[in-house]
Structures are given as structure tokens and as C-alpha cells.
């Protein structure tokens, strides 16, 4: 993607992709409109920061509604929002980083921690070939 930036080629080859999975507290109080603006501003600033390092690849929020399938042939289906879960997967990012430690370090800036949420960081395994 950065073909016109020869300096990056080396780090490009060394970088791996990492998945951030964001989970937020289900029972957190609903933010007021003013707090929503603040939260959105914090996320935008964080994403901008990752973009500026050329490490942001993709990301999306997830709708609260959904279904969970379980059991033989996925016959047991639970409708979301999933009240039995304390945390709800709220969205994901795909970023690039040289190693897990660097990906973790970058995740520390996530605004989700201010409201009791969590970020799971996982390296995406690519099958060579």
C-alpha cells in the first residue's frame, strides 16, 4: 500500500496484522447526548492517531442486536442483545504492528477503558502461500 514510500518497505514486511476486539460494559449507564459527543471525540482522536502512524487498516462498530447459535447443527439460537453477558462485543479494528507488544502498547490509548470496557488484542494468522 505504501509502494511510493520506499523507506517503509522494510517495516511493511516485518509488520503483522492484529485484531482489536472491543467489549463494553452492558450495565454502564446510558451516556447523555453531551457525553456521547465527548466519547465520539475521544474515539475520533484515537483513530486519527493510529491513522497518522499508518497502522490503521479497517474497523467497524457492531449492532447490539444479533444471534448466537450453539449446540448440534447450531440449533440452539439466542437472540441478542445478550442480557446474560456482562460485556458486549461493540466493534473491532484491524491494525498493523511489528509485534504483539507494540500492538498492546497502541491499544492502551483506547478510550474504552474510561468506561470500564476492554480490548482484546490478537495477531491475525495468515497462511503463507
Amino acid at each position, binding site marked *: 500500500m505504501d509502494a511510493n514510500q520506499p523507506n517503509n518497505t522494510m517495516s511493511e514486511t516485518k509488520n503483522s496484522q492484529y485484531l482489536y476486539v472491543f467489549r463494553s460494559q452492558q450495565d454502564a449507564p446510558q451516556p447523555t*447526548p*453531551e457525553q456521547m*459527543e465527548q466519547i465520539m471525540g475521544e474515539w475520533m482522536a484515537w483513530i486519527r492517531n493510529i491513522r497518522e502512524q499508518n497502522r490503521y487498516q479497517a474497523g467497524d462498530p457492531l449492532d447490539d442486536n444479533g444471534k448466537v447459535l450453539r449446540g448440534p447443527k447450531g440449533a440452539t439460537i439466542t437472540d441478542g442483545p445478550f442480557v446474560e453477558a456482562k460485556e458486549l462485543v461493540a466493534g473491532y479494528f484491524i491494525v498493523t504492528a511489528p509485534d504483539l507488544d507494540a500492538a498492546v502498547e497502541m491499544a492502551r490509548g483506547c478510550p474504552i477503558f474510561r468506561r470500564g470496557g476492554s480490548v482484546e488484542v490478537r495477531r491475525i494468522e495468515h497462511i503463507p502461500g
Partner: protein
Amino acid sequence: MGALVEHIFRRESGRLVAILASRLGSEHLHLAEDAVQDALLKAMQTWTFHGIPPNPTAWLLQVARNRAIDQTRRTQAFRGKEADIAPLVEEAAGDALAVAAPRFEDEIGDNQLRMMFVCCHPGIAPEGQVALMLRTLCGFGEREIAAAFLISEAAVSKRLVRARQCLRESGVSFDLPGPEELVPRVDAILQALYLLFNEGYKASHGDALLRADLCEESIRLCELLVANPAGDRTAAWALLALMHFGVARLPARVAPDGNMLLLAEQDRSLWDRSRIQRGVACLERSGRGGHVSKYHLEAGIAFFHCMARDFRSTNWREILALYDMLVAIDNSPVGGLNRAVALAMVNGPEAGLDAIAQLPRAGVLADYHLYHAVSAQLQAEAGMIDAARASFRKALDLAGNEAEREFLRRRLEALGASGS
């Protein structure tokens, strides 16, 4: 990705609730509020990644419509009535979205004006009216209303529940009141806006930014009111003038160290001249008609303060004349106290103290810290230092917040140095 417009969520909340509620009817106000809250949450998640859409109101309206229909399906309270409400929601959103761009803003202004009349329905207690306006028209959360009024969230919640219940039970209409009903209904709105403004404007307590927001919101709503023929009344223009004159002087009320400053101590170069000009323009509009309201008199007093180069050269005679009229139409002990201050500036501190001694219902004032603070100030000026000390101490005992106590402590200390 566009830059964040300040208070965009609060603003959109106020617009959306008015649009939906004015079509769904006051009995479904809660449904409108919930659908808008859901739509805002969705916006917060989506806009973060994709930026704010060019027409956020239309974007939110689409989402709120879907949420409202979902909700009528899911909620027990709507069971069985779903068939009636879902088409209503569909029609409400469709209607609003069909309004072409240039008329869209007028349409929103019109909806918000109707909402204002609904919020200030005479069946709702004044503090409930103010809370409901902040919630529905200004997009404040219960947490913020509680912080602004220094009451608990539970108390705010109760006020809002009662207000919504009144609307539901009385089936309050979103139609503008007819000509015979219009004057008292507009008066009720003015009274609520006056309350809202004073809550933001009164002596420094709580969150200063939040309180400044209350002042700005009351100005915005008052501007909305006078922009419509239904609310274009001289008293409304006078209230708007009073608000501008007040907000213009806000930046000078607090010293850099956070201490409150007396009018006499304020750096008048910090007053916002363009605001004062807007106040003057509103005051001129308010003069087109014979009726003189208390807002006219208060705006007049604020005008003379704004025009004065310094405290000493203030036109105290005019201010005293206005207070005389104010006391004549609204004989409140607090108004009388303010008049005594103006009288002291014209005829000396003893005259002010005499006026305080003759105040009607002085018993009401005995627990009011400013009564003792004003007395103390005048006693000090009259050389009655011991009496002044005692009055300041009484005021200190009664003052409700730390900023005011600090202010009074400084006065008392100054007295110690010069008195002995």
C-alpha cells in the same frame, strides 16, 4: 471527516424530539425521547468511523423512526396498540423527511416552538417545566440537569415523570394556543425561561461551564420564541434584552483566582460589547407597545449598568426609578433589597439601611444571606463597623456555597483591617 460541531448531539437531540413528539402527540413523548436516544447512540458509534453525514438530522430521523417502530413491537406497554402507533411513527418521520431543504430549518423551529408551549403547560409545576425544556428541547441528560440545579438525579427524574404524566393525562395538544389563550401561555414560557436563565446566571455554584450553557440555551429558546408571530411580544423582547445584558457581563464576574467579584470591582473591559449591542437592539424592539413588564424594568436596570463607564458614574437615579416601578408591580422582599442598594447609592448608606428596615415581610429575608450581606456592606459604609461585622457573620452562616462564603470572608477580613 468533518470537524465536530460543538454540542451537536445535544442540539440534534432537541431537534429530533421536537420533530417526532409534535407528530406523535404528547402522550408518546417518552417513545420519541427513547427513539432519539437510541438513534444518537447509533450515531456515536457510526459517525466515529465514517464521519458526520451532511444532514445529520435526516440521518438520525431515519434511525429514530426504525427504533421507534422496533420499540412499539418490543415494549409491553404498546402491546396491542402496535398497529396504531407504527403507522403514526412511519408517517411522522416520512412527513418530516419530505420537507424540502430550505424549509427544513423553519419546520424544526416551528416544532421546537410548539414543544416549548407543551413544556410550559400550566398543569406542570414551574421546576418541572424547566426540567422538561432542558430534557426535550436542549438535549440535557438527567445527570446534567441535576448538576445544574444542585439536586439529585432521582429528584430530576421525578420532576420529569410527573411532567410527562401531566401531558399524557391532560392530552396536551401540540397546536399553538388560540388568540384568547395565547397571552397567559406566552407569559408562562417567559417565566420558565427567566427561571432557566437565572439558574445559569446566579452566583457561582457548581460547574461554571454548565451554567453558562444554561444561559445560552435560554437565549436560544427566547430567540426562537420572538421569531414566531405567536411569541413576538414586547415582554419577550425585554426578557431577551435582559439575558444579553447579563451574559455580556459574565466574563468579568469571576477573578482569575476564581473569586467572585462585586460589580464595583469588575474589569469592565471584559464585558462583551457586541452582546450589549444585541441587548440594546432587543430593548428597542421591546419598547414598541405600551405595556411595561417586569422584564422591561429589569432589562432597563441592566442596560444602565452596561452603559456606565465605572461603578461610581453609574446612573443610579435612573436605576432607582426603575426599582421603584419594579417594587410597585412585584413587591418581593428580594426586589426591595435591590432597591435599597440603589437608594443607598443615591442618598447614602443610612437611607439604604432605613429602606431595608422598612421592607415588607422582612421575616422572609432573615434566612437570606444576601439580606445580611447587603446590610453589612451598608453598615460598613455608614461607619457602623461592629454591626457590619455581626451582619457579615450572619451572612456567612447562611451562605449556601463555598464561592459565596469565600467572598464574604474576604469582606469580613477587610473590615477587620480598616475598622480597628
